[in-house]
């Protein structure tokens, strides 16, 4: 029974029976800059009004003045927990627009990086769900493995969080032996730790009681709200861009799409965990395929796109043609072929789409990012309505809301 039924306010009182609470914008439990104005009856949420845009950086406007290669660092800052996925999505879009086909080895190397970054995203999300439900140790167990993944990025591209990894046509340099050693080390140690993490959480009575039935949504509502990725799959819809519209040679791999049934926090947690196992299996398969390239084939790390792929520095200093291309690329003087294209990849949070219109100039005429976070965040008031305040916090972290992706 509602508590407010027992309260009688004197006539003419301006007091109200409900409490207004600002959850955010800088609340530690929101893990990012979101504001939710909650109307509470006791501890039950009657309504939530979401405000977004606190870190809006006008990426779409910025992109209209930048040549293609300068837009890659912008995509880093969308979902900053899995920057390489955004980078690869952008490179794949550019390659599709320019009609570039990449060698198989590049595709497989990209898949290794993409799946590593999916794991790093999911492990943060799932361990944060644990933190928000009062179980801190899982977070500490998994976080050290994000460090290993970041070391692999560092070995490949030189940076860790906002990676700017890869180039149009392939990678900036070949993977070093150290990168492969670190990958092997990760593949050897991570499964054990993930197993331990699952032992801590999956059948933990307290965790189950906290998450089952919390923030649930039906498949039909989820699709109407534009959910994609693990959040949609947790409701039982097996939509995955990697399978529906394969890109970067995903069709060569054997993997499952885990689905849930109820679409609540617990199912989202299980789906993400299962996806990490699938990603591990994909990385293993891809690494095997990469090792099969021998001799000069093992030296291939980019496609032949001289107009967009920076030539090697020693060629720039000794060859006329390379110098010209170097100058034209750096100054952004290459015209992009006219056309319009929507291309999407399965990012960690769902379908990350790039809608690019080119009028034949040096920069895109219009570029729009379809950010999965921004679209499914609309469901938050519906997901939290009638629940407790602490459920709202878990729902937020299990949706994996990333402020960067929300605001663009």
């Amino acid at each position, binding site marked *: 029974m509602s508590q407010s039924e027992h309260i009688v306010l004197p006539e003419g009182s301006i007091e109200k029976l409900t409490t207004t609470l600002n959850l955010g914008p800088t609340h530690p439990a929101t893990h990012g800059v979101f504001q939710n104005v909650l109307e509470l009856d006791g501890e039950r949420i009657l309504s939530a009004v979401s405000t977004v845009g606190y870190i809006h950086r006008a990426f779409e*406007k*910025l992109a209209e003045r930048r040549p293609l290669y300068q837009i890659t660092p912008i995509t880093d800052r969308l979902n900053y927990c899995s920057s390489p996925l955004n980078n690869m999505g952008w490179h794949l879009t550019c390659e599709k*627009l320019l009609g570039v086909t990449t060698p198989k080895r590049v595709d497989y190397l990209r898949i290794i990086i993409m799946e590593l970054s999916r794991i790093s995203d999911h492990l943060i999300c799932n361990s944060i769900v644990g933190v928000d439900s009062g179980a801190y140790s899982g977070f500490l167990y998994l976080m050290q493995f994000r460090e290993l993944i970041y070391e692999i990025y560092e070995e490949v591209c030189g940076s860790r969080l906002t990676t700017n990894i890869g180039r149009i046509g392939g990678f900036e340099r070949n993977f070093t032996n150290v990168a492969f050693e670190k990958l092997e080390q990760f593949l050897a140690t991570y499964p054990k730790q993930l197993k331990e993490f699952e032992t801590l959480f999956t059948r933990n009575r307290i965790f189950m009681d906290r998450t089952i039935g919390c923030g649930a949504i039906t498949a039909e509502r989820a699709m109407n709200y534009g959910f994609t990725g693990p959040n949609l799959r947790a409701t039982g819809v097996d939509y995955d861009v990697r399978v529906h519209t394969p890109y970067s040679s995903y069709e060569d791999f054997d993997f499952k799409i885990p689905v849930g049934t109820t679409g609540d926090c617990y199912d989202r947690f299980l789906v993400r965990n299962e996806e990490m196992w699938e990603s591990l299996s994909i990385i293993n398969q891809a690494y095997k395929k990469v090792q099969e390239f021998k001799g000069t084939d093992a030296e291939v790390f980019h496609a032949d796109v001289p107009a967009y792929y920076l030539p090697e520095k020693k060629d720039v200093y000794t060859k006329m043609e390379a110098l010209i291309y170097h100058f034209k690329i750096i100054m952004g003087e290459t015209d992009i072929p006219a056309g319009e294209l929507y291309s*999407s990849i399965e990012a960690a949070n769902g379908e990350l789409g790039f809608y690019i219109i080119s009028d034949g100039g040096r*920069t895109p005429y219009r570029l729009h990012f379809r950010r999965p976070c921004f679209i499914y965040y609309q469901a938050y008031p519906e997901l939290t309505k009638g629940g407790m305040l602490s459920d709202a916090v878990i729902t937020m972290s299990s949706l994996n809301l990333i402020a960067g992706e929300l*605001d663009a």
Partner: protein
Amino acid sequence: MTNETIQKKLTEKFGDALTDWQEPYGMLTFSATKDFNLKVLQFLFDDEFLSFRFLTDLQAVHYPDRTGEELAVVYHLHNLTDNVRIRFKVFLDIQNPSVFSATALYQSANFMERETYDFFGVNFVGHPNLIRILNVDEMDYFPMRKEFPLEDQSRVDKDDDMFGR
């Protein structure tokens, strides 16, 4: 379901109201006038054969040179069962940029229409809460329109004849 069958089905229903059929990079693209936008979306949603029930994306584009149809609202729709995508455009006059809201069909259109309003000033008739979303409420212009160039126009130290757009 192929692009031809979709085009045939839509032409049967709407006749000449749908124009500008194209297939850039394999995605069926067509346009309609603004009176038809909700009718077309409703038909695409309800029809058993088409059933485009997933709104992937919604945004606008500004073409200052097209007199009378400066703004284009672009819908990307997806049929998840057959895995077919289409693109649907509605061109609007910038003096009166009103178009019917798709929120009754797709909940996901809510934020996307607010974003489009915020950046381009498209007025979505029937939207439950059409206010600015990413920019500050006090803003009195629509920043993604082409009349607002990115760089400060008062700058004199940079010669743009040689580099950049």
